[in-house]
């Protein structure tokens, strides 16, 4: 930062060095082959330049041995790239369990971020040093992409479903946040900053100017405003399942499938309740599409998450029967 003419990005997250090491391997291989090919061409071109118009070079048809060699060796080197690349990819794609949750709603052309504690930010993200942060993201319109070059992470943000990404910052500072997926007129204006702060500064920041309560508290308010609690009683009586302990549990559906109640599932339950109906219940829940914003859905999710399991009260947490369906992001498209 402050550098007017940088040639290499700062390493500011735990995955950044992993990505860069892989880059150095590829650079090494590439430079080797580039130099090899360029020097062979120059050498041959000079050594075997045409000396007379009638000269006839010897006939050489080829060599199967050479062909095999220059297929196998590059292939081997490439397989190392593949395996190493996949390893780093898994590191980038799999958030640790203890990550701090932040919710991101993207729209043309701004980033709205909400912390669990209730802080809302626009085009800025404040996070503590040394703590993994997991982003759960959705878009209100077109596809965007959350990109922090100095963290070496990027994830598309899709309308109608959640995607996630995570990073653990290793360096205090201010880092570019870019939208990397072309999203219309002000695409290049859909940028912001990520501030990595010392943990105590972060705490101070959190306690200052939060206002409006935590996400879960807001979720609880919404839950009452939208009259969810008319149907969903905490003790599970009536025609509706209790939401106590649902989050993260396995849910048996009327079609016999079992799904894990993750963010995507809860979101779908609210917006398209008929898509997956809990076994033993009628599909009487109305859709809240258009009645609740994406931010509101995220607050409801946080609230439902906060409803811890009470022994015996877990609804429909029947043992998984049949194939367990992965918590796919494609849920929104199913009907």
């Amino acid at each position, binding site marked *: 930062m402050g550098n007017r003419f940088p040639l290499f*990005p700062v390493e500011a997250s735990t995955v950044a060095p992993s990505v860069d090491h892989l880059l150095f391997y590829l650079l090494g291989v590439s430079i080797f082959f580039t130099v090899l090919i360029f020097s062979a061409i120059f050498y041959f071109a000079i050594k075997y330049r045409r000396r007379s118009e009638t000269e006839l070079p010897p006939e050489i048809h080829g060599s199967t041995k050479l062909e095999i060699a220059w297929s196998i060796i590059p292939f081997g080197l490439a397989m190392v790239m593949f395996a190493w690349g996949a390893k780093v990819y898994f590191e980038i794609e799999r958030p640790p369990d203890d990550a701090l949750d932040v919710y991101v709603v993207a729209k043309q052309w701004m980033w709205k971020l909400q912390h669990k504690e209730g802080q809302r930010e626009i085009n800025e993200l404040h996070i503590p040093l040394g703590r993994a942060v997991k982003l759960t993201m959705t878009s209100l319109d077109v596809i965007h992409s959350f990109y922090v070059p100095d963290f070496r992470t990027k994830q598309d943000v899709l309308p109608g479903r959640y995607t996630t990404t995570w990073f653990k910052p290793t360096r205090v500072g201010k880092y570019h946040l870019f939208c990397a997926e072309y999203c219309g007129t002000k695409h290049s204006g859909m940028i912001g900053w990520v501030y990595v702060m010392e943990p105590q500064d972060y705490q101070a920041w959190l306690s200052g100017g939060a206002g409006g309560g935590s996400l879960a508290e807001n979720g609880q308010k919404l839950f009452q405003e939208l009259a969810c609690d008319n149907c969903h009683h905490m003790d599970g009586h009536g025609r509706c399942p209790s939401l106590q302990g649902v989050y993260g549990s396995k849910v048996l559906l009327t079609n016999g499938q079992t799904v894990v109640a993750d963010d995507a599932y809860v979101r779908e339950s609210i917006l398209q309740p008929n898509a997956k109906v809990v076994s033993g219940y009628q599909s009487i829940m109305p859709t809240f599409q258009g009645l609740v914003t994406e931010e509101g859905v995220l607050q409801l999710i946080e609230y439902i998450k906060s409803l811890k399991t009470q022994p015996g009260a877990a609804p429909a947490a029947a043992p998984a029967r049949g194939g367990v369906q992965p918590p796919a992001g494609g849920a929104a498209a199913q009907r």
Partner: protein
Amino acid sequence: MITAALEEREHYLNASYGLKSWLLTKDHKRIALLYLGTITLFFALGGLFATMIRIELLTPQPDLVSSETYNKLFTMHGVIMVFLFLVPSIPATLGNFFLPIMIGAKDLAFPKLNLLSWYLLVAGGLCTLGAMFAGGVDTGWTFYTPYSSTYSNTYVIATALGIFIAGFSSILTGLNFIVTVHRMRAPGMTWFRLPLFVWSNYATSLIMVLGTPVLAVTILLVGCERLFHIGIFDPALGGDPVLFQHMFWFYSHPAVYIMVLPGMGVVSELVATFSRKRVFGYGFVAFSSVAIAVLGFLVWGHHLFVSGQSVYAGMVFSFLSYFVAVPSAIKVFNWTATLYKGSISYDTPMLYAFGFIGLFTMGGLTGLFLAALGIDVHVTDTYFVVAHFHYIMVGGTLMAYLGGMHYWWPKMTGRMYPEGWAKLSALVVFLGFNLTFFPQFVLGYLGMPRRYHVYPPEFQVLHVMSTAGASVLAVGYLMPLVYFLWSLRYGKLAPANPWGATGLEWQTSSPPPTHNFEEPPVVTHEAYDFAALLEEAQVG
């Protein structure tokens, strides 16, 4: 005296005169020239947009144009260059002209279809240009949904319709080439005597015929959603936004090989001719084209590593992408090995071939970076990608195209171009190209996203270098345009075989007669048999 001889001899250019004799021609050579004129215009237009983009990016702030206009500029640049220039480029011009002659045929299998495919390109082009003059389109050449299908309020449908129509032009060309290679080879022209240019155009045609219909379907679906609000891609209508990306890249990744395989074919011809040697490992080079065509269909998902696709799908596509590296590497190694103990001349086409090998090597190797999952997450949708595919498309295909144009120009027109200027142009293009696009790799790794109208100030120095390179490159492209036109009138008359090359096209006169050969040729030896050529020269 020689001029008089040329005037007297009838060839395809003077066989008939008048606009009608061109617009209704069934001669593949004349159709090739129609294509040449058409795509040169498209290239000039695409280049003009590129120039404006590069000027705008000289400074971090907006100065030349607004964001709306900037977005339209890069979209039109991409659409024109990809669909109206690169896809038809080598096959429709050099391929159209030489594929039949190289296999000893009188014409393509379906001459009328060939003419129709030119008209389709023109119709598609006019449709797209019409959309441009009406106000343009701002979706990027990739048309990602739901932006293109719901949100953009520019001329998406008209532009896409143009691409749709132009797509049929390439399907028909592919079909024509395939049938021609199967059915029209001269006696003795076995599959393994085919020049490598024919092999690579054959492989290209397979992709055109199999891949392009998928693009057509995709465009239709976008149209359905945009016009009739049928939910296919927009989740607000119940669609799946990522589905579009799968369908689009199912065509557009193989399309990369539509664009580059013919270039590889040209380079094989050039390397053989100007080192007077049979291409090292002919069979491997021939089959690597087919292998690339087939494998190219299995790797589309490497464009979706950050789209939310499952990590296991990502792994499979990364793995398969590395397989494509092998046939590409085989080609580069074989071209280099062909030089060994050759008799190498530095005529302009060979300089372009050297340029191609160098730049394609760099483009290909940076493709390995993008196929590596961990790195792709960081560099996808940045200037790294932009640099990578320009190394392949411009450094590769365009270098090969220019090399091929210089190589075959004497045959096509009966005139030599000025060698000194041509050598200079090759050098200028090579240097200008690297200055333009190399800094973009650095920009990309630094994190500069593509399609940004304004950008953070720390990226400016590299952008200025890139723009400087682009101006050098522009000069490099203008030079051939000028001296080629000049040579039509003032160039030296070309002999039948100015390079001492072996292909059948060099055994007929320059320019060839309407039916290509005075007598139907009979092939008695392998491709690139320079010993036989020399012997014949001594005997006859």
